[in-house]
């Protein structure tokens, strides 16, 4: 009865009998001829196997992901000729299976935060997962759910965390999954004070959860205030990184060497370089060569952490580099994106407007600072690896004093030929909201382009308000 009422009120696009997306058969031959995905353990999956999974297994296990509602910002991209988006989706759909297998093979699961490099975790043989990844892992354990059912269960999960920590926690950061054991993390060890203050307090909260004695806790302490210019800050952070690998070693029983870290840095640097090249290519195109969601997914792969397997992420990035280059040459305009769309750059904390609806309104998100500043920071491979990694991490532009952060942001805005800047922050995000006004004022002073500050709520209760403002902004800057 309630479902019927909902349909009447809200329209068929979010009903219990939604329209589902299918990958069209006519693209199969072209897709199966594309690259395999290689994994860290040396195994591979072919494009044929991926196709079979996405067209037969995926729709049964995770019908919610195939929901076509335009209100669903995370729905599968309709750009079916972009092979890497299919592969990315495959990796996310198989998150639970892959991570469970990897853990059974002796790789501890370590919870981290977004926007940080994960080189040392992998060097020590662990798998580093940020909140988005742990959330995906938890959700992929529930099969056969519609989008509405999945969303309701997700909200119930969050409520558990709010009860255990605080209703003002901006994002419970996987607390509920880790403490309930749905995501069997062995360790919580994020970088502190980076992007977000809740991460430190959220880590501390694990000390009173039901799995408190099973989950090892460590903070990799990120010193603040001109940290990149202070030798003692770099030494301190390098010591924290060494402590991190020692702690992971206690879980694995092995000893992580400097060579291990140096090798991992090299691998991750390749990912970061590829992402930077991809971005330069993407931004150089007359018209957007992919939609906004695919752009974001591709750019973020350089963080090498989203799939829980850096080698797999790298595999996709290498292929994406070629595909995007070709699209730019072909002057390809991505499906769903309007010609001469208003180009928006998103600053702030980890929230985003719905890419598809933004594109329907005549805009496109062409870049963002969060999950990008870390990727644009390469680690010098010639020096002592802990020291060089510390030096690089402490120089993330997003974490610098305001003027320096603004200078870097303006560079990205210029490179991406942005028409307007959205500063979005999540409700309860004290750290990014505090400097929202400063940053946009400084950007405006340096570039003269339009800016807007919007607060969002990750529980999606304010989605329409957010989108309404974004659409009005697009209208203004177009």
């Amino acid at each position, binding site marked *: 009865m309630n479902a019927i009422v909902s349909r009447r009120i809200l329209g068929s696009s979010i009903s219990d009998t939604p329209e589902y997306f299918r990958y069209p058969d006519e693209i199969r031959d072209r897709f199966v001829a594309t690259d395999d995905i290689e994994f860290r353990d040396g195994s591979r999956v072919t494009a044929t196997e991926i196709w079979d999974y996405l067209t037969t297994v995926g729709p049964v296990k995770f019908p919610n992901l195939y929901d076509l509602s335009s209100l669903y910002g995370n729905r599968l991209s309709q750009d079916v000729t972009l092979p890497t988006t299919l592969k990315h989706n495959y990796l996310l759909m198989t998150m639970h299976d892959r991570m469970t297998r990897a853990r059974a093979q002796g790789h501890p699961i370590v919870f981290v935060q977004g926007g940080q490099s994960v080189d040392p975790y992998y060097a020590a043989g662990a798998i580093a997962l940020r909140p988005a990844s742990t959330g995906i892992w938890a959700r992929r354990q529930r099969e056969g759910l519609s989008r509405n059912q999945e969303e309701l269960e997700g909200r119930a999960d969050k409520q558990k965390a709010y009860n255990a920590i605080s209703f003002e926690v901006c994002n419970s950061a996987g607390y509920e999954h880790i403490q309930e054991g749905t995501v069997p993390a062995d360790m919580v060890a994020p970088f502190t004070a980076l992007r977000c203050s809740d991460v430190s307090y959220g880590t501390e909260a694990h000390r009173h959860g039901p799995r408190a004695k099973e989950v090892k806790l460590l903070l990799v302490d990120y*010193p603040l205030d001109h940290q990149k210019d202070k030798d003692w800050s770099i030494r301190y952070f390098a010591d924290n990184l060494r402590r991190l690998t020692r702690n992971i070693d206690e879980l694995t029983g092995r000893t992580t060497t400097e060579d291990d870290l140096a090798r991992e840095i090299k691998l991750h640097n390749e990912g970061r370089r590829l992402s930077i090249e991809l971005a330069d290519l993407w931004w150089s195109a007359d018209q957007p060569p992919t939609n906004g969601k695919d752009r974001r997914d591709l750019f973020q792969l350089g963080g090498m952490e989203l799939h829980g397997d850096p080698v797999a992420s790298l595999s996709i990035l290498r292929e994406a580099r070629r595909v995007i280059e070709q699209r730019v040459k072909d002057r390809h305009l991505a499906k769903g994106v309007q010609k001469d769309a208003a180009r928006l750059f998103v600053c702030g904390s980890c929230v985003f407007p719905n890419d598809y609806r933004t594109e329907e309104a005549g805009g496109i998100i062409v870049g963002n600072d969060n999950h990008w500043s870390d990727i644009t920071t390469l680690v010098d491979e010639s020096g002592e690896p802990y020291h060089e990694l510390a030096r690089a991490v402490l120089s993330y532009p997003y974490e610098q004093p305001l003027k320096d952060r603004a200078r870097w942001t303006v560079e990205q805005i210029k490179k991406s030929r942005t028409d307007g800047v959205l500063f979005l922050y999540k409700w309860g995000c004290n750290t990014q909201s505090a400097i929202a006004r400063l940053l946009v004022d400084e950007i405006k002073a340096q570039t003269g382009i339009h800016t807007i500050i919007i607060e969002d709520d990750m529980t999606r209760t304010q989605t329409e308000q957010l989108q309404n403002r974004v659409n009005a902004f697009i209208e203004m800057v177009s």
Partner: protein
Amino acid sequence: MALKTLDIIARKLVERPAVLASERAAGAKVVGFQGYTLPEEVILALGLIPVRIGLGGSDRLVELGGRYISTKNCVYVRETVGLFADNTDPYIVNGDLFAFDATCLQAYRTAEVIQYYFNNGVIILGVPRNFYLPEAHTYFTAELSNFVGKLEAFSGVTLTPERLADAIKVYDDIRTEILAIYDYQAVLNPVISWEQVYDVIQAGFVLDRREYLDLLRALHAELRALQGEPVVGRHADEARLFISGSVIPPGDKKLITIIQEQGGRIVGDDLWTGLIPHLGVVIAEPTLEALAYAYLHRTPHGALPYLDLETDGRIKRLKSLIQHYQANGVVYHTLRYCDPYTFKAKETKDILEKFGVPLLELHTEYAGSDIEAIRTRIEAFIEMIKVKAELGEAA
């Protein structure tokens, strides 16, 4: 019974802005500061005048500050920014330099906002979150040394061991006197209330530190003359409340007033603006290394995460203070968006429940709109404690 020294302190507070202005006119420099892990000793040692800035309780200043920093920051932070935007508070107007530490990350952001919008000279002291580790001590010593270097350049004075030793002595004596005075408010029939002691502590934020020490000594002597050595004790039917949680700065009397109106007696606190900064500061020698160690190893601020519940010094301190002041209930005050303390509310409640002490969390701002709601909850909490106390006594 009126205490003469309290009247003198009140008068000194009224006179202080004019005194500061005249000292500045004579060449003295004032350093306004905010922070928990910021050793005030170094400011005094360099011949600068330390003034702890920050007020609470003003909706107007909160609104004003929120125009620069966001409405998702706690009201204390917003009001601090509002003070700079308003620029009429004598301690802001008379500030020559402002120093913040990064204990609370919102305070760190406040420093950035102030520097950007109001062109004030601002210096920041980084604070390690892993404060208990040896490498944190090394880092913080270097950070403190860098901070002192900036103060030296600003003051034109070099920090010598002698200067530092003198300043440490002043602060050690202040801490000793405050601890001694604090006990008097918790005795059976006190001549000084907790609120008066709290006000005395906060008077020390702005008064000349040496003069303040003399006033504390005078107050202590006055109390000793009236009541002898203090013996903490309680009446059977008393609701003796301990206040924990977020900062309650000068100007914010909402919660304190409601508790007292409802018949509760506050007998202790572990607030950043109250007793806690004065506890457990052991400076072994007049060096920056020792100063850094002492500040990192006193009772940790809630904004500094500690990952082992069993050995958490903040929890241990809370329990020992509750016992010492014979409190039978805790009012856990959290300001909206004060994550350091809000995140710990349920955990602290669970811990104290096992300890046999009930905890009431009150989540509030400076606005008056929730006064009645708070009053109702406080009234019920006090009633419950009194009934429990009486039943316990009868048993």
